[in-house]
């Protein structure tokens, strides 16, 4: 269409078609932000690969939003650098970065129509109306909003507004898209719908996405990699699978998915394996299951982390954990058993559906066994 006419602009050289749009890598090194004496972001090093979907996940105040604001150029780093491809962005003002961004509360311009909103970044790049019109249409079609150009933002639902915001952020074909809790203001069903839509867009466009969220489920669903942040630092960086199965700290273990923590004692060390006594069961774990790779000694107290699906209900045995069943919750695909050990630790156990014959629904005393290969072991202090 009109794409040929925009090629050759000094400040903007998009590839000839949207399908060929290439994401670019972001390199963050030694990046810090201090607000007076408060450290918002503490010496973060991170490389986001070209075309990657990376989530910054953490509780509020963990520094994830501040980090994103420094990528967008709205916060000036106290130290460190940000670069996009080979270009150093650290001191570049936000309007010269050419990075797309989607905000939590849509941030559509209320006095402009949907089409004017989407055309805004093209207008800023000196494109005429005739040049921008087909691109605006194409971008709206991409978020399934063709024909909505003439409406005002206030006439759209929250989900539609956020889709317009996505269309606006992508219309100028930026190599990177930043998303600041973009689905935070939407209800659960719509959120899940848009998660899939954004994921699909990402797959078809190849743009690099940095996605901020405090919702671990959202991060697990959407990301190639997740950087879990706390206290201004990246606590762990890895694929959703790695973070779920091999958390390096009890913070990450606790933050991602459901996790039970039991206290245990190191009973013996041999052949690179560790024997641990946990509330009546002796488990043998590999050294690689030790979060943080710390050295352990015999008799040392540890925290043993077990996912609800890695605990099984067993017959009475000397080598099992005796518990008092408190309640069991029907959850459709499975049943969750809430039980308490003799030392008062509450455990959640996921019982597979096949085990749900009404007759053996557990009550009163029961015995649980941890699946040793799926455990993570942390030092008692973290």
């Amino acid at each position: 269409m009109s794409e040929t006419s925009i090629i050759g602009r000094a400040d903007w050289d998009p590839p000839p078609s949207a399908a060929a749009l290439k994401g670019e890598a972001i390199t963050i090194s030694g990046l810090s932000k201090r607000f007076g004496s408060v450290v918002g972001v503490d010496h973060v090093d991170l490389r986001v690969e070209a075309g990657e979907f990376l989530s910054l996940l953490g509780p509020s105040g963990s520094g994830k939003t501040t980090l994103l604001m420094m990528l967008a150029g709205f916060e000036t780093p106290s130290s460190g650098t940000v670069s996009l491809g080979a270009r150093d962005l650290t001191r570049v003002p936000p309007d010269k970065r050419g990075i797309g961004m989607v905000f939590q509360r849509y941030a559509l311009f209320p006095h402009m129509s949907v089409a004017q909103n989407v055309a805004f970044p093209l207008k800023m790049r000196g494109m005429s109306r005739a040049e921008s019109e087909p691109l605006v249409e194409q971008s709206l079609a991409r978020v399934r909003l063709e024909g909505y150009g003439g409406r005002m933002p206030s006439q759209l639902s929250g989900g539609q507004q956020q889709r317009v915001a996505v269309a606006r952020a992508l219309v100028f074909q930026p190599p990177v898209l930043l998303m600041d809790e973009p689905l935070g203001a939407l209800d659960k069903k719509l959120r899940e719908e848009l998660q899939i839509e954004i994921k699909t867009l990402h797959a078809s466009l190849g743009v690099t996405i940095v996605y901020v969220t405090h919702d671990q489920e959202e991060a697990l669903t959407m990301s190639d990699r997740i950087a879990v942040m706390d206290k201004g630092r990246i606590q762990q960086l890895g694929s959703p699978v790695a973070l779920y199965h091999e958390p390096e700290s009890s913070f990450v273990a606790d933050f991602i998915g459901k996790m039970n923590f039991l206290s245990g004692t190191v009973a013996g060390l041999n052949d690179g394996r560790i024997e641990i006594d946990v509330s009546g069961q002796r488990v043998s774990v590999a050294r690689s299951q030790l979060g943080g790779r710390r050295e352990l000694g015999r008799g040392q107290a540890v925290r043993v982390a077990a996912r609800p699906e890695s605990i099984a209900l067993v017959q009475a045995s000397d080598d099992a954990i005796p518990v008092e069943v408190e309640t069991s919750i029907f959850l459709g695909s499975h049943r969750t058993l809430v039980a308490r050990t003799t030392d008062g630790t509450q455990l959640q156990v996921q019982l597979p559906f096949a085990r749900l014959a009404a007759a053996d629904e557990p009550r009163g005393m029961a015995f649980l066994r941890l699946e040793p290969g799926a455990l993570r072991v942390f030092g008692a202090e973290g």
Partner: protein
Amino acid sequence: MADATAATDRSLVGQLSRPASLALALPLVLLLGFAFVVPVAKLLAGSVFAPNLTAEHWLRIVQEPIFLRILLRTVQTAAIVTVLAFLLGYPVALVMSRQQGRGAMLIAACVLIPLWTSVLVRSYAWIVLLQRTGIINSALLNWGLIDQPLRLIYTEGAVIVAMTHVLLPYMILPIFSSLRSIPPELDRAARNLGAGPWTSFRMVTLPLSLPGVYAGAIMVFILSLGFYVTPALVGGPQNLTIATLIGQQTTELLNWPFAGALAGLLLAVTLGLVAVFRRVLSFGKAG
């Protein structure tokens, strides 16, 4: 925010029975009726019944050009004051809206304290500044910049400067409140999409603050049209406005019927201009 308040107000009204709402409104209706509507109606009636029906006083306004000239000058002064108040007030409102905590409070105090000070006091303050032996003239003389004291007071310029100062808060406050209601991420979004700070202001912040600008401008303009104290004090007898003219007719010449005609004219002009403003502005909003 505004929507939420409006909704609560409506629900509160909804809970009141009709007689109860009328009873609540009654004191103000009575006060306005006796203290405002009746005297104004009497004054206006007096301009055409003196004691028999006559157009004499209204014709006089048209026949003697001096009166229409005064009216024109009043409208012109009001327009200049409105534009100046906008030019001076908008930046203040903008800075104020971007401040947090202590800074915002300091600026708000600077805007509000003059508002709470009597107009009379503020107008006399301008006399102190502008008169022949006033602060400005003495300073200029001392620095040797002038040989003779400048004629500052009792000029149209003095009236404009003093009125702008007195009416400035009425411009700043509505603009401030409309700027404050603009979500800050809109400016960020514009910056992110490629707009420099000035372009973002021109294309996003300014258009979204226009309702406040309109409210402030109409308020300042209407107040300026009927402003009495400041023009009377710093304008002197040579710089009559419609309001000072009406004052002169009632207190010095005791020509109540003619004052009534002038007051009727001022009222008509004011309402007419407000109607035109509203038409133009609602037009602007739709486009």
